[in-house]
């Protein structure tokens, strides 16, 4: 979105508000007042939502944020009466465009769902019927709304064009599994908007998508909202996405709306300690593992159905006083259209931190000899589609004690690189992999105990990475016995110190993974990885399955462990903010090739490779400084059939007109000391191009 677009958008929104205020007659798109939702679990009622009130005006976009278990999805389900059988609205009222879904019979409810409210869920793949062609599914929506067959087909095609699908005919003939995630989500959005609903509910619509695709889908939703005059309820755990998409925002915590107001104000000047804490958990520009550290929110969500006399956040709140524990705070007006359920809402700006902001961490030596050296590292998989080069001739060094951040879209080869390094998959012939100058066995069968010890991993999803039938004690003890060769008292001592260093307690040892929260599970996985005394730990998206408040604690833990145990990290993440927070150096991967590598600050501040530039600009930011979006055309090409020349040329916004990008693959050359790039455009020209765009952007905003 350009600056001019934004300005006109803001004008438009302002005008609508003014008109609404004058007339006050047209019903709000959504009005929820004092909503309670109760689930009956094992014969007992558990309150999942309590006293939730908010409204969405016409053509307004309202964001609901909260961590898992806060009740975000329950709100959406209650609005459309899709609550599970054990759930019910136990108090309060809902009005959608002036109609009350709670009082409707089945046919009215059907009509409401068909015409007035539409929902888009997280997984587009699950929202589409896998056995019907896309065209047929779409036409059905129009037929329900009253079109005949021919008209339905025509309108489906028009709708697909509206969601910027350039080739609707092909998409309508396809089955859902033939579409990419981004394409499928567009189809779902097209179906949701088919009946021109008054209210569109988006429940984590981009969480399953890559950042570049996410950015496109978000732009699309924003554009369509203006065009179709639809109100949006946007549910997400991602504060930056909400900040980008929504006019107003409500923050849910443990089933209560603890703060509400215009999005920009809530994120700039939060007036509830929880919102403050949440915002401090997200890495922003300028924050690094050693200064301006992320702050974690101590404690845990209250148990479901657990009744507290006072404020639900009081047990975790650093500024709670006796009053907070005695009586639940009412919703205080804290500004125009703003409320906060906090007695001390005036004191939130000075909220004390739970962890120190600055710590001194040893800087990794810019040593000459890297600990890991990869030369011509390749991996080709054979599939029905032919030979797929998941990794094509990667040269990369990892320095001793540093954190190398590996970024790229899904399918770029990040995980393959990690698996080759670990020996879980054998690299192609001709690949060279060495540890401390000594060649590494090509797979685990060819590696000795010392090599096994040296390389360990923290997987993305601890549910998958921990054996669910084993106790924590067994899980953490095993590497100590097997790799570190400990037994008896020595093992018990090391176990105790390891458990303490990942900030867990003795009482957790007897539990099984299912009895732990996500953050604790990941701590167990980290303890396992560190048990054998590794040299290098691969962190494969270690925080992406976790909530933000937990993520902050895990990131800081990783930074502290690195300092204490002197290990090297290969840190893989799609979240550039997280990578930037933790990494000393960055490598950017695209279609199995290194596009750019260099010191983190250089790579992020630019001039950078056009692909890096596009990745960075796709990330919604909380800082308010909106970058010009460098749009990437289309999606990542198939690795089975990579483009000629520079593999990125098919999507590159800065492709040269001379045709060299299509014909010749640029070498990975050193453009500055330590900064390597694979691009035909000289660094100085990139600097000029990128600074021009940046200054444009600054003047516009």
């Amino acid at each position, binding site marked *: 979105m350009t600056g001019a677009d934004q300005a006109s958008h803001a004008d438009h929104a302002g005008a609508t508000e003014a008109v609404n205020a004058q007339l006050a007659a047209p019903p709000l798109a959504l009005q929820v007042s004092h909503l309670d939702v109760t689930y009956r679990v094992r014969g007992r009622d558990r309150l999942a939502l309590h006293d939730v009130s908010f409204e969405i005006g016409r053509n307004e976009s309202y964001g609901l944020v909260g961590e898992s278990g806060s009740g975000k999805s329950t709100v959406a389900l209650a609005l459309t009466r899709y609550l599970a059988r054990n759930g019910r609205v136990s108090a309060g009222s809902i009005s959608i465009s002036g109609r009350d879904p709670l009082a409707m019979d089945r046919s009215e409810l059907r009509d409401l769902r068909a015409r007035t409210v539409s929902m888009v869920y997280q997984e587009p793949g699950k929202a589409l019927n896998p056995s019907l062609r896309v065209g047929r599914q779409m036409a059905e929506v129009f037929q329900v709304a009253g079109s005949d067959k021919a008209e339905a087909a025509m309108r489906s095609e028009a709708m697909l064009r509206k969601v910027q699908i350039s080739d609707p005919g092909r998409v309508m003939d396809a089955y859902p599994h033939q579409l990419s995630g981004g394409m499928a989500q567009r189809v779902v959005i097209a179906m949701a908007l088919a009946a021109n609903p008054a209210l569109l509910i988006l429940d984590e619509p981009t969480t399953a998508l890559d950042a570049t695709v996410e950015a496109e889908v978000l732009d699309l939703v924003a554009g369509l909202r203006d065009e179709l005059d639809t109100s949006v309820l946007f549910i997400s755990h991602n504060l930056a996405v909400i900040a980008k998409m929504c006019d107003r925002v409500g923050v849910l915590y443990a089933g209560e709306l603890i703060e509400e107001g215009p999005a920009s104000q809530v994120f700039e000047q939060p007036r509830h300690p929880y919102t403050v804490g949440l915002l401090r958990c997200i890495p922003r520009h300028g924050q690094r593992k050693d200064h301006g550290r992320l702050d974690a929110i101590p404690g845990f969500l209250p148990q*479901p159905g657990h009744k507290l006399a006072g404020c639900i956040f009081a047990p975790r709140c650093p500024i709670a006083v006796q009053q907070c524990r005695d009586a639940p705070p009412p919703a205080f007006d804290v500004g125009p259209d703003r409320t906060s359920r906090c007695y001390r809402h005036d004191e939130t700006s000075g909220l004390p931190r739970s962890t120190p902001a600055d710590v001194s961490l040893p800087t990794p030596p810019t040593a000459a000899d890297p600990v890991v050296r990869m030369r011509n590292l390749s991996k080709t998989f054979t599939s029905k589609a032919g030979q797929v080069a998941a990794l094509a001739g990667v040269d990369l060094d990892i320095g001793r004690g540093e954190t190398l951040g590996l970024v790229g879209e899904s399918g770029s080869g990040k995980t393959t690189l990690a698996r080759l390094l670990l020996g879980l998959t054998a690299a192609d012939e001709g690949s060279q992999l060495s540890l401390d100058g000594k060649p590494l066995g090509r797979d685990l069968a060819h590696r000795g105990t010392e090599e096994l010890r040296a390389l360990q991993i923290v997987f993305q999803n601890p549910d998958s990475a921990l054996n669910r039938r084993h106790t924590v004690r067994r899980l953490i003890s095993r590497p100590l016995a097997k790799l570190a060769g400990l037994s008896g008292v020595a093992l018990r001592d090391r176990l105790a110190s390891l458990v303490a260093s990942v900030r867990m307690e003795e009482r957790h040892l007897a539990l099984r993974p299912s009895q732990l929260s996500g953050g604790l599970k990941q701590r167990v996985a980290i303890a396992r990885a560190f048990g054998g005394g590794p040299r290098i730990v691969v962190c494969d998206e270690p925080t992406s399955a976790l909530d933000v408040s937990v993520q902050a604690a895990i990131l800081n833990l990783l930074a502290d462990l690195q300092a204490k145990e002197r290990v090297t990290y290969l840190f893989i993440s799609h979240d550039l903010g997280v990578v930037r927070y933790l990494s000393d150096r960055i490598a950017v991967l695209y279609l199995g090739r290194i596009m750019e590598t260099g010191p983190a600050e250089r790579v992020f501040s630019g001039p950078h490779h056009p692909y890096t530039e596009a990745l960075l600009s796709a990330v919604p930011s909380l800082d308010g400084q909106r970058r010009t979006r460098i749009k990437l055309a289309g999606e990542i090409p198939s690795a089975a059939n990579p483009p000629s020349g520079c593999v990125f040329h098919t999507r590159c916004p800065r492709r040269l007109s001379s045709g060299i990008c299509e014909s010749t693959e640029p070498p990975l050359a050193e453009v500055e000391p330590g900064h390597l790039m694979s691009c035909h455009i000289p660094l100085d020209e990139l600097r000029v191009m990128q600074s021009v765009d940046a200054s444009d952007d600054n003047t516009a905003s």
Partner: protein
Amino acid sequence: MTEVAAAAPAEIIPAVSARGELPAWRLLIRRPSFLVGATMLLFWVVCALFGNAIAPHDPLAQQLLSINKPPSAAHWFGTDSLGRDVLSRVIVGAGPILTVAPLATLLGTVLGTALGLAMGYFGGLLDALVSRLVEAVLALPAVIVIFLFIVALGTSVSTLIIVIGFIFTPLIARTVRSAVQVERHLDYLSSARLLGERPIRIMFVEILPNVVPTVVVEFTVRLGYAIFAVATLAFLGFSVQVSAPNWGSDINSSYGLLGAGYWWETLFPALAIASLVVAINLVADSIQQVVSE
């Protein structure tokens, strides 16, 4: 693609869930179908263990003066064509069937689980070969195959157990294999490999505990089939001792008299077989539902 977000509504995650997962047996005993099935099964197990003590008459004693008597106060289930008490024969007849069937199923389960673990973990040629073998076994009716073996090897308790166990092995292996293949995609196996664990340990210490629920379900389901197979073989004349009480062979020797109106001699052993199979299936179903929840 990577972010996993809030989904299940009521799932507010506490630090350490106080109840965690309820132990499986507690979930089981909440199910009426399990209670009914288990009670019936328990009844037959007691009969099998203490049959001779419980039976009101000697199941072998022939009273030639009161043959083919209908149910009465003295003989609740009537008497058969040799004047033996049907009730006593039904009670004591639980013994042989509840010896052979569980042992055969256990043998098949142990072998099948080991084979299934290896097939699922190693894949490749072993998997392909055994999979074809399974299909071959499935194509033949189990009772006919068992029948052939018994004709060739002669009838004895151990032959019955071994033959039925071997027939079940590939069937159970196939089920275990697919459960193992689900586990293979989970990272904890990579994690174990990175510790340098041997395949045997990965199969039996890492994977096996996770497929135990599948194995238990498979055992109970197969047990039902085994009961049926043993009864069928006895009916066909392949029981170990000819005169000993045996539901299958008792039906065989009495069903010719149904036309004469002597229904009790056939009905009660048949009901015994039916109730035992139903009991086991109720238990199996309940376990399956608890496991899949």
